[in-house]
């Protein structure tokens, strides 16, 4: 019995995690999570609209990202 538990622990690998995510998550859930990350990154770094871009100017400099 102890062997079974050990095997289960030992085989917890990156591959298992991918399999587990595939089983537990639905397509839309993954899409929402990826979209959230992409939207945040895009808004903070790449939006060139002057209002938003200029108002985040100090933040970008403080984070070490320079655009000019």
């Amino acid at each position: 019995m102890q062997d079974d538990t050990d095997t289960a622990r030992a085989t917890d690998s990156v591959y298992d995690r991918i399999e587990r995510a595939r089983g537990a998550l639905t397509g839309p859930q993954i899409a929402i999570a990826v979209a959230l990350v992409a939207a945040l990154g895009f808004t903070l770094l790449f939006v060139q609209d002057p209002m938003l871009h200029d108002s985040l100017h100090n933040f970008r400099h403080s984070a070490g990202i320079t655009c000019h």
Partner: protein
Amino acid sequence: MATDYLERGAVAGVAGGLVYGLFVATVGNTFTAGLETFEHSHGGGGPVVSGITTTVASIGGGVLWGLLFGVAAFGMAYFFLEPAIPGSGATKRLALAGAGFLTVSGAPWLVLPPQPPGVEQALGTETRLAWYAGLMALGALVAVLAGLAYRRTERRHTAVRLGAMALPLVLLAVPVALAPANPVHGDVPAALAAAYRWTVVFGQLVLWATIAGVHAWLGDGDTPAVDDLDYPATAD
């Protein structure tokens, strides 16, 4: 279970973001605004928003920056990479935070260090964006190689394992040697520019360390290897 990870990552990210927002409010905003007085012409004809908007938006941006790292690194990457990341507990989190810092900031900054406002760079924005993206990819690669080196040296002395982990960092010298020269010109004194640069470095380090610390403090939740297995768990 994956959603637990996402939730813990987001909570840690917001906590780190709040600390980082405080850093932007107390240091980042004022330091940046102060250095802007060295700036003569901004090209685009000056900012279109008021100072107060910039202040508030930049603090908010700092909080969201933390949330972004929390969700992407500790909510998503950590779920998949947890079995492969060296160490346990807080060490594991700090290892991931170090990899995140190297990818997002550390590696790119070797070629394109943070610049204070009022400094013009010779390389165009497009060129710099391409280099930044490439260096992020290299930073991630170096972090993965370091993790693999640690695994491959199992059963060796800890010093050997740490040495093996440090070896892939040598790769970072390649882009530094190959990168085109990027001379800067501006009226900011060199010592002040260096102080600004290091302030930015420490700001990002504090952000990653805070996220890692809060994430470790939140704990592991359920034991990941044992729940939702396909076959019934064995009683022991």
